[in-house]
């Protein structure tokens, strides 16, 4: 199975400033072109979570991809959008609840052809190329959360790297990548600050450590900025991150 490359998905070019609930509100517009565009943003960003969830529910690729298309057609038809309400809380939970309802109501009701919108909403090839989930992901809800968190983290890391580039701090990014990202994600041995300092020519070990602190702050800021649009208020950011962590760690919390 081919590794999915981050740049394959158009959604990554979307701005972090797109407020999810605002997009949903925008999709309520009666102007079909604007509605399609607003819903398109939501679809581009979230189809992976929906697909991962459906596959873990036991659906084969064909059925799952068909249901993904169908789910977003339903969104396009505004039936789900009209029920969306920011006051209900987190967008992640809203989407999953809506998906559950859709699958229950629509299960095998229509032919694949009827469900699929003209041109589709996400490339079937892209779905086929998604790598398998790790064994630790055991339930459909975990699959959904896992795909959600991956998307979030991919976007955040790309933005952190882009901001480092803008700030002409590529060495800072490199220090962060080697001492934080790779060791945390892959268990790779982190080089010592002294070794990195010598390799990158970044002055002293103390200065190299300070570079790392700068990017950690940037990571934290950008992560929180990416989570903010998915929750009802800024006060809920910590709770959302903690719940994601708990779900990923398979602790017993609600969906």
């Amino acid at each position: 199975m081919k590794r999915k490359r981050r740049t394959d998905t158009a959604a990554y070019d979307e701005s972090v400033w797109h407020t999810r609930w605002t997009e949903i509100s925008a999709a309520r517009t009666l102007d079909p072109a604007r509605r399609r565009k607003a819903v398109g943003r939501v679809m581009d960003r979230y189809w992976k979570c929906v697909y991962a969830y459906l596959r873990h529910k036991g659906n084969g690729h064909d059925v799952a991809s068909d249901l993904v298309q169908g789910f977003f057609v339903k969104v396009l038809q505004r039936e789900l959008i009209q029920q969306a309400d920011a006051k209900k809380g987190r967008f992640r939970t809203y989407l999953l609840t809506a998906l559950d309802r859709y699958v229950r109501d629509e299960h095998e009701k229509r032919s694949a052809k009827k469900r699929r919108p003209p041109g589709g909403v996400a490339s079937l090839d892209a779905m086929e190329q998604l790598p398998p989930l790790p064994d630790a992901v055991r339930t459909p809800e975990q699959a959904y959360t896992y795909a959600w968190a991956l998307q979030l983290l991919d976007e955040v890391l790309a933005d952190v790297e882009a901001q480092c580039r803008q700030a002409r701090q590529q060495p800072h990014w490199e220090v962060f990548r080697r001492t934080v990202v790779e060791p945390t994600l892959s268990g790779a041995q982190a080089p010592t600050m002294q070794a990195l300092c010598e390799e990158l020519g970044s002055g002293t070990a103390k200065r190299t450590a300070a570079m790392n602190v700068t990017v950690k702050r940037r990571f934290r800021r950008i992560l929180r900025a990416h989570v903010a649009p998915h929750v009802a208020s800024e006060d809920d950011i910590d709770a959302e991150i903690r719940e994601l962590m708990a779900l990923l760690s398979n602790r017993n919390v609600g969906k």
Partner: protein
Amino acid sequence: MSSEKTTHGHDPENIAAMLRMGTEADEAGEMSSSEVKEELLGRMLRATLPPTRQQVHELSVLVGQFRDRLPLRGRALGEALLDEETELDKLVEIKEHGKELSRDRAEAERDTALTVYYGAIASAIVFHGQRITSYSYAALADAFGQLVEKRWMAPKLARLFSKARKACEKLSK
């Protein structure tokens, strides 16, 4: 990790460990002025336009009668600036908002507010082909060029300024 790669395939516990950093307090260490501006700009771009006086008046009436019908928070400024469908009058409003915020402020706040001000002008030029300021295209090209180079600039906004600069350079000839 380069932008070509993805976190796919990593253990969920490890993904959680990365997310944990988002909830931890920042480590000690003084922020540079560039970092302060980067943070301020991020906050400003996530904020929404304040309500107009007319809206405040209407809301005060609504609050009493329809508390649960109050509008959801509006679009983030950053989103509005990068959306080709943002109406021209809204961009003028954002420009004025940026100008207002820049008055009598410390350097960091003034610079970030002026970024919003010029962001609205750039958006109007790039997406509508309209100049919503009396500045000449040559002056604008110069201003956008300087903004693109700012280390604290949001990368997506830097791309908008870069496009606006090119458009202004063409138009000034």
